[in-house]
């Protein structure tokens, strides 16, 4: 069995999102609190530490742990850093598959694939658009061997 990785652009998108979030949070101490005072540092430092933790460790680790396997009998998707989850769905249980284009699709050329069964769903995020299209074609009900 060989697991496939999702697109490397996942790291880029998540790093950008984390940077944006940290930037928005950090604006407030600059506006409302005296610079270099105790409270300024107290409010500014925790988000900075959290951002650095996420950017340097969590996001790369999340990318490393995210992978999927799709074969003729099952779909496996695993992800997670602190809580690692491996989701497994039998091909025969699949009811329909959705290719989800996000607002970032034109920019990064990535898309999500949503695999639905009665009572359960697997969402594989940050797939290369062409790979996502291939998966949707491959997983379409009736295609299973």
């Amino acid at each position, binding site marked *: 069995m060989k697991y496939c990785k999702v697109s490397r652009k996942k790291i880029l998108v998540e790093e950008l999102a984390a940077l944006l979030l940290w930037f928005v949070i950090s604006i407030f101490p600059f506006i409302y609190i005296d610079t270099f005072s105790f409270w300024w540092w107290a409010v500014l430092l925790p988000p900075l530490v959290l951002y650095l933790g996420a950017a340097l460790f969590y996001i790369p680790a999340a990318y490393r742990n995210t992978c999927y396997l799709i074969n003729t*009998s*099952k779909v496996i998707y695993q992800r*997670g850093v*602190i*809580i*690692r*989850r*491996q*989701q*497994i*769905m*039998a*091909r*025969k*249980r699949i009811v329909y598959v959705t290719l989800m284009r996000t607002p970032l699709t034109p920019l990064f050329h990535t898309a999500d694939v949503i695999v639905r*069964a*009665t*009572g*359960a*769903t*697997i969402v594989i995020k940050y797939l290369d658009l062409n790979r996502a299209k291939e998966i949707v074609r491959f997983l379409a009900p009736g295609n299973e061997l």
Partner: protein
Amino acid sequence: MEYKKAHPVNIVESTSRFYILLLLPILRGLLFSGGNLYIWLKGAWFDILIIAAIILLGYIRWYFNMFRIDEDGLTIFRGIFLIKKEFIQYDRIASVAVEYPFYLKPLRAVRVQVDTDAGRKRRADFSMTMRRRDAEELLEKSKARLITGDQMTKSYSPKLFYIGVLSLISSNSFTGVIFASTLISQSGRLLGKEFEDLIMNNLTRLAEFLALGLPPAAAIIAYLLIGGWLISFIINIVRHKDFTVTRRDSSLLVEAGIITPRKISIDVNQINLVEIHQTLTTKILGFYSVFIHCTGYGKQKNTISVLIPAAEKHEATRNLELLLPEIPFVKKSIKPKLRNLSRFILVPSVLIASVVVAIWLCNRLFPSWGGLILFLGIMLEIPLVWYLLVRIFSFTHTGAGVRDGIFTIHYTKRFLFNRVSIPVEKVSKVVFSQTLFQRTTNCCDVIVYTYSEGTKKHVVQNLNYTEASTLLLPQIGEAPVYDKEK
């Protein structure tokens, strides 16, 4: 075949919530007009006109609400401006529920709910108040394809004592309190504010009288909880009295209730899983309550999807083999390792210790309130100690097993011990979840998602990851295509 209309009582049912508030002042006006119809009409003509318009709308709606019971399915035709025609094939129907409310008996009307695996989670795909003979025709036709006459009819009817045990488990104060408050507020609305106040004052006086030295506020809360629980218990007894399950070929017919009897016809092939529920008390006493999960069963207001209300182990096993031999319970082949016992008892132990520390601290800080602090602390410790006992039992209870396409899992959910048996083809997804701490001992939580209208998941905690994946992975990939004729 001709379309049939719903029972005319539908006109009243669909509009009553609009005109009931207008109807009462009109009737009161009639009472005080001294029988003079002209004076009454002069004062109430506008209200009467509105009521007439509401009833007319109800009539039009009823007139365009039709159904046809065909040989292969049920056709529904509804709508005035936006006309909808729906067809439900009998072999897609998971359950048909027919309810016989006592107040509709003189009108020969019954409530019918038809449900399939598609559609909304909380609402039946088709529900209507129809004539009794139409409902019975629908029930018979939907069952016809399930009954081939190959097998003998098997029936199970529990003793009243077992219904009592089920009511004991499933009753809660909240339902009773909601029922009592609705009763009081609705009677207040119908009979006037004075009557509502009279009931409330008398109840308060009664609580003060029975306070037995307790502060009145505490006594009211205590009696409210006890009273609520008792009401809920009685409602459950009434609802499940005369409970009978009849198995005939692939059809399962559940009948229960005395004031509002109901019949539910279930397609055995559409049963997704069988569950055994036990609380710590019933586990110690050796009682088993068996439930089934099938779309539509248990969806009606205040109903539960019970198959065997309560029974001792051998009786439950025997009746389950009789009624549902397709979904047996498999013995556990994997269990949590002894080194993982701490994971079961850690949370309640920490909570118990925290409360002890909090009591000690509060006693030091507020010595004059020592008695009250000790009382509250003990009250808080009781459910925590109970939870610790549940978690200790949970360690020996948890496990999983697979045999002949049947997957059985044993787990606890809050204070409830569950055993769930699922045909492998009804498993939608399996998730192995591992926290950083669980990785150190190679254990994981197994989350099983089963075939359901919404999401139904079962979490088995702290199984060995290697054992669990070895047991489950081949089963998921090699599940046979679900065969209805099996």
